């Protein structure tokens, strides 16, 4: 089999690729369950249908989808420019640390300004953590893929030091965690008895803003040109360094916001389990959403469902926790594989014999 470039990229494949990737993921997933000795039909029911059976399921879905969508919006801007921030997890943690730090510093405050201040601090924390790789890239040409990932580990270490020493809850039995935040430091619940909270509005606002930004702004156009044709961007005089700063700071900022959303939401404190890898999963969300602000909403919901299903499967089927990661990873893998067929098509190489026959047929 040979890959041959298509004359024009296939429009059909561009839309079909995500669907094909989902089908392939389900197919291989079924095989996986069979190998584990589970009935795939039952497993899929537990994974994808069961979680949405009641209001609580939907609340949990939105609760998980909101940070994924928020982070992916920021990442997608960079990906368009071919700036690959893969350390959004670290920016999320720094957002949580900055926002959480405010909550801890003003533990007894009842002010209505506390939460907005935390949100602002979280945004700044994430943006700062994104700015470091931007500085390293524009000054020293350091690969952002490496620096962002390494800084994610650094952020994790900073967090674990903070919660095991200076910010540790004195009454917390020595667990590495901070005090539980007061009500003024938490997003309020939207519905009685459900965990979904008002931070979801941050995501909704972000989707709208990013949609306008991507489809209407000249800045987003410049970023896209930089990704599609770097030489054309240089020819037009769009500064490459501005694109780097914009991509990394913006994606850091959204990740930081998501971090505050977690600590001031379902988690309610700083501890070592702020995020179940949202920063990494959001990379997949961005790609499956085709880097489009609206596409990302759908892919974010899908990824959140996989999170929920994975948890449900652990309880109902005693499958390992890794199931979630496996499904998410497969989805990205198959999508990237399918993406190849947007620009290329598969062709059987002419076998020697057939080629010779063809030639003979043509000769007089």
């Amino acid at each position, binding site marked *: 089999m040979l890959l041959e470039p298509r004359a024009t990229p296939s429009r059909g494949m561009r839309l079909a690729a995500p669907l094909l990737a989902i089908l392939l993921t389900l197919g291989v997933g079924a095989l996986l369950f069979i190998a584990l000795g589970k009935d795939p039909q039952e497993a899929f029911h537990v994974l994808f249908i069961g979680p949405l059976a009641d209001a609580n399921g939907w609340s949990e879905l939105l609760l998980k989808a909101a940070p994924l969508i928020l982070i992916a919006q920021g990442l997608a801007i960079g990906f368009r420019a071919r700036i690959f921030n893969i350390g959004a997890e670290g920016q999320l943690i720094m957002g949580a640390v900055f926002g959480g730090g405010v909550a801890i510093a003003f533990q007894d405050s009842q002010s209505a300004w506390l939460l907005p201040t935390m949100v602002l601090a979280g945004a700044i924390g994430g943006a700062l953590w994104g700015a470091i790789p931007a500085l390293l890239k524009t000054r020293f040409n350091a690969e952002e893929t490496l620096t962002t990932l390494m800084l994610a580990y650094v952020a994790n270490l900073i967090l674990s030091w903070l919660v095991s020493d200076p910010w540790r809850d004195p009454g917390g039995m020595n667990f590495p965690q901070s005090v539980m935040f007061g009500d003024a430091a938490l997003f309020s619940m939207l519905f009685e008895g459900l965990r979904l909270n008002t931070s979801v509005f941050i995501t909704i606002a972000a989707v709208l803003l990013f949609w306008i930004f991507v489809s209407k702004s000249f800045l987003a156009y410049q970023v896209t040109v930089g990704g*599609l044709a770097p030489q054309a961007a240089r020819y037009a*005089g769009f500064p490459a360094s501005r694109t780097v700063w914009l991509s990394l700071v913006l994606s850091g900022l959204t990740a930081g916001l998501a971090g505050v959303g977690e600590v001031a939401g379902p988690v309610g404190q700083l501890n070592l389990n702020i995020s179940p890898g949202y920063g990494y999963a959001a990379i997949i969300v961005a790609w499956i959403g085709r880097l489009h602000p609206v596409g990302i909403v759908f892919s974010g919901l899908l990824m959140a469902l996989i999170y929920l299903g994975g948890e449900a499967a652990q309880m109902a089927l005693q499958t390992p926790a890794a199931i979630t990661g496996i499904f998410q990873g497969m989805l990205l893998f198959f999508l990237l594989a399918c993406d190849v067929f947007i620009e290329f098509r598969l062709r059987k190489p*002419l076998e020697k014999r057939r080629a010779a026959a063809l030639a003979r047929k043509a000769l007089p």
Partner: protein
Amino acid sequence: MNPEPPIPLHGEPRLQLLHISKRYPSVLANDDVSLVVRPGEIHAVLGENGAGKSTLMKVIYGAVKADMGEIMWNGRQVDIPDPAAARALGIGMVFQHFSLFETLTVVENIALSLGGEFDLASLAIKVSEVSKRYGLPLDPLRHVYSLSVGERQRVEIVRCLLQNPQLLILDEPTSVLTPQAVRKLFETLRQLASEGVSILYISHKLDEIRELCERATVMRGGRVTGEANPRQESSASLARMMIGRELPHCEAPVFEGERKPLLEIRALSREPDDAFGTRLSDIALTVHSGEVVGIAGISGNGQAELLAALSGETPVAREMVQLCGEAVGHRDAGARRDRGLSFVPEERLGRGAVPAMSLADNALLTAHRQDLVRHGLRRFAAARDFAQRCIERFDVRCGGAAAQARSLSGGNLQKFIVGREIMQTPKVMIVAQPTWGVDVGASAFLRQTLIDLSRSGVGVLVISEELEELFEICDRIAVLAGGRLSPAVPREQTNAEAIGLAMSGLFAQPTPESTHAA
């Protein structure tokens, strides 16, 4: 004249196209085209930009599927589903845009395209043999990135020849070659023809066609509009067949306005960024309002480096470039454009235009200064309108402002980019190879447009490999050779010979040019 090779013009046709049609969403690119090529014949295909020449060649090579029509090969009907099938039949094609891997050696590149099992060492020997036999010197072990454009084309040709083709298709092979390389290529092609290989040859250079080809098929708007024996035609009559009217002549009126220096290059020196670049040394030149200044010379003598330094893509020291009296050497391309510079680069796809974007989006690339952006937001209707006006004024044949840049034929994209830059009413306009791949009619139009632009008070700098073009439009001509620039001499005081001499680097030490050059 070269001796006429013995051409077996009789006998069965090598290739016969019958009623080929190919429709793209927006245009009928080939409309009922029939064509006969005999063994050993060098057959030209002429036509305006967008006439459908490349499309027809891609149909023959299996790179594009025709909607209708038949292909007869050596008297039998064949189906050519893909290029591999075409190669198996004995059809080779050299595309205008090369498809070589820069990081591999010549022989590795060739091995890749041959496919199957191969032994690099013996293939290298075969490559050397073939390249020697046809006068196409090539070192099989060199890396492609270190080759000049002409050498890269040789690789493509040798790659075709290794498969012993019976038909060789060349799509505008000489638009990027030096005159010497063109001579060599013609010798090779004649030798091939004398061995019975048929050649389909596309070019906009009518002199070349008259010299090389014994038959020509003329296309317009996707249809065959005539056949001719180019040796019995004049360039003017061929042009008339192509564009359906007389070829207009350029007129350069005297500039009446005040002659001010607009672009000044002062002692510009620069080390190249990579090992294969050219060092620019001590370049000085002034372009005034109301004049067209030309820089002659063969590409690879610092042209790319000089252009990048002037456009701002690679900034230099502050004082080295002055735009309307302001030192801008350190500024980037955008800042220089803000100050009235327009620039047309030689690479259209990927530099002058973003291939995957529409023409309206490509208008925005540099013309966003024309009120196409307000409060940081794009004005889509305004950009479409700008693109539409450019399409109309410069007669760009395409599917409208929404057509992707890469769907345009080579010459039409060039017209669009030149148009986009001119419509921004620049103070200084720099153009590299203004008419590469542009048909004769459109070339004449573009040249006249550049002259008119200068007479409206703009300073125009043209870098071109085509001496005739420079003599047609320039008021003064300088030569860039080996990274050094000769003084710009008024056109009347020089001739092709003197320029040729300067090209070989034999001009006197360049003296700092006075602002009142003769």
